């Protein structure tokens, strides 16, 4: 791959354009997020002022103090973390297993089951929200941790996603595993799971952030104040007509930071896993 050759002017121009494009996109993403984070440290009165500045003229903690006074935010962080980690770990296992079977094993009724699953992916959550709530209420699971997490133990999008990764792997893998005397589950856990590390990490990130930021589901499934979650906490500062921007930004920042940390550590693993699993046949 590594040939040294002179670039033509067209290639130089293309390279420059791609750099500019990538940089522009990065600015577009980072500028509003950073501005919001900085705004959390502005004195409440200076958030709404003209002309606006990018960096705060004064740095204060008033907004954070306000948040801690008005809602038990640390408890919300703990609740949200538990919800996100449990649903992510279990759903990752269940989805990968099902995705693998659908992608690579022939079994009776496979297409029927898969089509039914696909159909359920098309159901907007709002359609089943009310009947699901009634069902869980009937099972006595509303306002319990089990009721919150068990319905999230598998997701059709996740199954579909894992399936699309497993279909791309070379066909000889299972046969090699069987020759080595591995059981079917052995093949899955020893060969297939490690090979799809990058897909698994991608899905873990999606699942965890999805659970972390879910608004409607925790709102529906929790009644007691001590079971509420972060996104509900932020909504507390957002009224229909007026928004308390200062504390809302501060609470928003508190909700972003743990994800950002996981993200920074995950990124290292994310890249490593991609390099080490660089599937050579």
């Amino acid at each position, binding site marked *: 791959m590594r040939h040294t050759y002179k670039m033509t002017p067209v290639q130089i121009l293309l390279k420059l354009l791609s750099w500019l494009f990538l940089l522009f996109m990065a600015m577009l993403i980072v500028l509003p997020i950073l501005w919001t984070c900085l705004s959390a440290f502005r004195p409440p009165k200076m958030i709404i002022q003209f002309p606006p500045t990018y960096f705060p003229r004064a740095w204060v903690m008033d907004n954070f103090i306000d948040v801690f006074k008005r809602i038990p935010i640390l408890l919300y962080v703990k609740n949200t973390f538990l919800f996100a980690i449990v649903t992510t770990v279990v759903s990752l296992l*269940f989805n990968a297993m099902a995705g693998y079977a659908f992608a690579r094993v022939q079994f*009776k009724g496979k297409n029927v089951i898969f089509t039914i699953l696909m159909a359920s992916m098309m159901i907007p959550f709002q359609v089943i929200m009310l009947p699901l709530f009634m069902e869980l209420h009937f099972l006595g699971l509303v306002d319990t941790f089990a009721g919150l997490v068990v319905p999230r133990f598998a997701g059709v999008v996740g199954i579909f996603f894992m399936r699309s*990764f497993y279909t791309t792997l070379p066909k000889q893998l299972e046969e090699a595993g069987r020759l080595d005397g591995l059981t079917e589950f052995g093949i899955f856990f020893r060969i297939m799971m490690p090979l799809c590390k990058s897909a698994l990490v991608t899905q873990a990130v999606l699942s965890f952030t999805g659970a972390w930021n879910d608004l409607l589901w925790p709102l529906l499934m929790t009644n007691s104040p001590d079971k509420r979650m*972060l996104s509900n906490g932020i909504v507390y500062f957002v009224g229909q007509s007026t*928004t308390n921007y200062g504390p809302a930004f501060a609470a928003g920042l508190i909700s972003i930071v743990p994800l950002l940390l996981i993200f920074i550590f995950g990124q290292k693993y994310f890249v490593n896993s991609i390099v080490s699993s660089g599937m050579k*046949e």
Partner: protein
Amino acid sequence: MKKILQYWNKPNHAAYLMVAPAVIVVCLFSIFPMIAAFFLSLFDVSTNLATWNFVGLGNFQEAFADERFIHSWAVTGLFTVFDVPINIGFSLLVAALVSGVGIRDKILRSCYILPLICSSTVIGIMWKLFLNPNVGWGIYSLSKLGFPRIAIFSDIDLAVYGIIFISIWRGFGMSAMILVAAMQGISTSLYEAATLDGANKWQQFRHVTLPGISSTLWFLLITRIIGSFQVFDLIYTITNGGPAHSTETVVSYIYSRAFQEGSELGYSTAMSLVLFGAILLVSVFLYGRMILQERRDGGN
């Protein structure tokens, strides 16, 4: 005991054990409530669930004569037509440019998926203030560059494009990350072979990368279209359907009829089922095309 183990170790038997947990969860908590929804749609249900009046298909008739419902479809269609192609186009372009393992690609990739860590509530308040015509830094900077200072989210014509922009802003990085993961799964020997054959960068992309990620592209296309048909949370946190219903999508309208303007659970469920039918049609069509293509590619 040994026999049982042997029985379940057959690939076509073990497969049932592998799909069982996921299938049971989906059946219990998605498909069963879905069937229950069919019954719910045939009734006029009062707020406290005390009275159930059987109206048959009356709710559906009402929906197709409901101008607000028809209009919400137009908004959803507009959203889908812009959001899906731009999202996938941008993410494909970005993924192709930053799929390497170097430090630059690593940093850029982290940037693009940053919106993922913000909840829709945070994104909502962020953009509402960032683009506020009086105190928002975003609009202020644009006005310095010569753009007019407009209140995007209170403009009947522009609000929906504002939402589309934010949706793409939030989503393209995630799509790009999925595509990058797929691109890095392609065996490097294929690229080496292509280089030996004298293929240039574009030909490599066209004949190695694209076929290698086609199942992932199908995944993105199908899930993005379904997601667009169901778009709700950004609208809920930014405009709540306004101004004058100009950003009211199908799910926004369903939600408001179910929870904000009197709880007409039966009618709302009936409208959700119409939405479900539409999504089903589109997905079955796309899914069929996907299977066709996978068969064709499997042949060579």
